[in-house]
């Protein structure tokens, strides 16, 4: 083991993180807590809390976070439990498909939901046809209950994170734990509450914290739903007069603090939990094959969740193919014209090219850093490796919105990151690449660490003892063994970079540099057939990402590892 290399790598990675992750976050905090000439001040934050609009926004965001997490849990836990316990028809493909909603961009789905739940939407048309609603007074489903609309979108988007974590926790439980309870007279329902659920808490907390932070700072869905009374949207709207207005920074800083606290709290719960020391399962989990009808019920449950989770996106697909969809259950006429028109729109093709480039570069950066970091964490014995492990996981705790703001502030004239934005016409390419890379790094590191831990150190030592240099060993033995894990982590990082919202919306200002997400958002705002064009672009993106995640799952094999903190 080369300690010098390990220290060198640790130093390099720490420096990279200090510059591109901690520094921007600190800048946000500085803008929020520092006033020219006055030094440290809490007046901006106090102002935020005094302002009823901002407090409502923060409160709504918090409520969104909590409610979305609970809703995700109610979807994810039964799925994970059924998947863990029973054998049912199409189980293998269903447990892969059930992850797909994670890469369906929720704010694209929100466009579909608007079409379905709008006043002149499909649901009202359906109800009127059944005679359950009055055509003269259609119900405004998204009017008063936008909050729940956002919750539903968040939950249906993010439940796979909890599902994977819970599934991983469940597979770590020794099946004898439950059998022992059964043998001592504990009926199934109590067994679930007394044994299974407590033993699953590591997964619930690990996944729950990520889901909370994600939905607490979700920008895209509320924007599309015009749900403006929520902090992330208020922050986004505040960008225009950023120079003179410190409140967006104060809001972002508060969100950063809340997210970090939640992250730390879940870490503390995990750290204190004795479950980490639980013996690894000795017995093999045997999936029960329930009676025919019951087995099909399991299949039906999985299908039902999939159906509901993909309904918004199905709406998008229908919309993209609709000639006219207004006040009817399904469009009256179909057309592929939107796809053609979209491809000739000046925003669309460049945005696809841009996103592909940004995401590929970011993934490349992540893979290089990820392998190096994983190697230090798993194979070296240096003292700083636990610190490094914790450090690279931090981006999971820091909302994208915070980072985007930090980058934005730092890329202004005369600031430190100005060099990343080349030329007179601001080109945010490298800024976006770095921003994407930093935030997706945890996934790649986790999957590389998992891969290294699974592969036997002796295999590397054997190569070394036969005369291979460390670098050659890495290339000829370690990397080939790590391959599937790296590809899985890389594809996930790539997929998330492709549909990243907050960095993209905030950092890309010129239309020729728009990534896909910002292009979709601009198209939505267009008069005429903007919605249809946005849908067509969204469908392209979704097809692409669906293929990516299936590939990631097939190659990654063991699920859950990617979203462990």
């Amino acid at each position, binding site marked *: 083991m080369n300690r010098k290399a390990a220290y060198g790598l640790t130093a390099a990675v720490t420096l990279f993180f200090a510059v591109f992750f901690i520094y921007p976050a600190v800048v946000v905090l500085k803008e929020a807590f520092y006033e020219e000439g006055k030094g440290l001040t809490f007046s901006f934050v106090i102002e935020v809390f005094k302002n009823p609009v901002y407090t409502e926004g923060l409160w709504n965001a918090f409520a969104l976070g909590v409610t979305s997490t609970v809703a995700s849990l109610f979807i994810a836990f039964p799925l994970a439990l059924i998947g863990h316990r029973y054998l049912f028809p199409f189980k293998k493909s269903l447990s892969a498909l059930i992850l797909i909603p994670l890469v369906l961009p929720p704010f694209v789905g929100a466009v579909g939901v608007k079409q379905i739940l709008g006043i002149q939407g499909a649901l009202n048309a359906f109800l009127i046809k059944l005679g359950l609603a009055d055509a003269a007074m259609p119900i405004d489903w998204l009017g008063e209950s936008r909050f729940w609309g956002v919750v539903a979108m968040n939950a249906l988007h993010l439940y796979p994170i909890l599902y994977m974590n819970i599934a991983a926790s469940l597979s770590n439980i*020794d099946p*004898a*734990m439950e*059998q*022992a*309870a*059964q*043998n*001592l*007279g*504990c009926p199934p329902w*109590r067994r679930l509450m*007394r*044994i299974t659920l*407590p*033993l699953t*808490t590591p997964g619930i907390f690990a996944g729950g914290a990520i889901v909370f932070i994600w939905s607490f700072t979700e920008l895209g869905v509320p924007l599309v739903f015009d749900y403006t009374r929520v902090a992330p949207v208020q922050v986004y709207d505040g960008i225009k007069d950023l120079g003179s207005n410190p409140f967006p920074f104060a809001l972002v800083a508060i969100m950063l603090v809340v997210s970090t606290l939640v992250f730390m709290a879940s870490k503390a719960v995990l750290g204190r*939990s*004795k*479950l980490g*020391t*639980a*013996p690894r*399962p*000795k*017995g093999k989990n045997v999936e029960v094959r329930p009676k025919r009808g019951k087995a099909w019920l399991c299949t039906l449950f999985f299908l039902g969740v999939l159906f509901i989770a993909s309904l918004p996106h199905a709406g998008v697909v229908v919309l993209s193919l609709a000639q006219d969809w207004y006040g009817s259950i399904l469009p009256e006429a179909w057309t592929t014209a939107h796809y053609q028109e979209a491809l000739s729109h000046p925003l669309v093709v460049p945005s696809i090219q841009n996103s592909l480039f940004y995401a590929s570069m970011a993934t490349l950066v992540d893979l290089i850093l990820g392998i190096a970091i994983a190697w230090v964490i798993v194979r070296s014995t240096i003292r700083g490796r636990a610190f490094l492990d914790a450090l690279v996981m931090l981006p999971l705790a820091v909302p994208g919105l915070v980072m985007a703001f930090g980058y934005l502030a730092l890329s202004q004239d005369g600031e430190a990151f100005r060099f990343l934005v080349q030329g007179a016409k601001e080109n945010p390419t490298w800024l976006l690449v770095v921003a994407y890379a930093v935030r997706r790094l945890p996934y790649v590191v986790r999957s590389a660490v998992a891969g290294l831990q699974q592969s036997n150190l002796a295999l590397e030592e054997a190569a070394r003892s036969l005369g291979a240099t460390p670098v050659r060993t890495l290339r000829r033995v370690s990397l080939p063994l790590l391959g599937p894990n790296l590809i899985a982590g890389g594809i996930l990082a790539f997929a998330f970079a492709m549909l990243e919202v907050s960095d993209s919306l905030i950092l890309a200002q010129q239309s020729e540099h728009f990534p896909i997400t910002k292009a979709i958002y601009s198209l939505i705002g267009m008069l005429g057939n903007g919605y249809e064009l946005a849908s067509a672009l969204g469908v392209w993106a979704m097809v692409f990402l669906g293929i990516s995640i299936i590939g990631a799952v097939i190659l990654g094999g063991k699920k859950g590892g990617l979203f462990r903190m």
Partner: protein
Amino acid sequence: MEEIRADGITKRFGDVTALRNVSLEIAPGELFFLLGGSGCGKTTLLRCIAGLEIPTEGKVFFGDRDVTDLPTHKREAAMVFQSYALWPHMTVGQNIAFGLEERKVEKKEIQRRVEEALEMVKLDGLAKRGIDQMSGGQQQRVSLARALVVRPKCLLLDEPLSNLDAQLRLEMRSEIRRIVKENDLTGVYVTHDQSEALSMADRMAVMDEGVIVQVGPPEVIYRQPVTSYVAGFIGETNLLRGTAREGNQVEIPGATLVATPGVEGFQPATGSPVILSIRPEAIEIVNPTQATLAGKIIERIYLGSLIQYAVKLDDGTVMQVTEQNPQIIRSPGENRVGLKVATEDVTLLER
């Protein structure tokens, strides 16, 4: 204390048949061992008795009760798992109290019985400890206490000692036997460790490929194995192929030995192929002129209290020979040695 009876049990998992028509009777208060290599079906049989698996065919009786379809917790048979299966989110005391809580026992009574159970396994006063604060041996005791505290009639143990180090394993052997006997339990104990079975069992069943090959007390199984599988699995043995001749004589390459049939009344037809089993410690090294078998020592392993030799016979067969308390240390080499063995130590088996 209750009799356990398995009646023609077959268990299939998909296409795999784990148990084939297995029948067994375990007497009340007996400590009975199920012994066999991995995949022989011993754990599946135990789990059928425990009610954690339901046999595809056949019935399980506890005393007069047909328990085949009875759920596990109504059988009054507590199970000790190989991995202990102690719940890490509960303390030692909570783990032990669990079964009593499920039985709605009064709080005070629970406390009393938990203390009693801890005393029984010599862990008095450790109720408040976390599971992660206990050593492997202590965890083993906690899992025993958790099973005992519900006062079962039978105790089912699934390789309970396989996760302990050698020293602790020896200690726990007598401990478990004491606990089963003191509590008047019928014990069924699954293991792949033949020395565990030989030293602890009242009776044992040797299993192979889903069937029971032989049932009996340890000394009978060891001395009169009925097949070469049993002979090879329980203790070390030399297996020699030969041809049956008149009056229990068996011709092996270069010699003819008189043997004792493993199964009473086994009379192989003259000329039919048979196997002879001879334990290494039953062989005495003598002058070549005084013995029927002769060869050269090719290897010596000195173990202090005993010494092991590998002797290559003239036809090339290698025999293991063990000498207790060796007086002479022989060296491998050219000198020929003779091997002497008594008729009752040559077991005649079907090939």
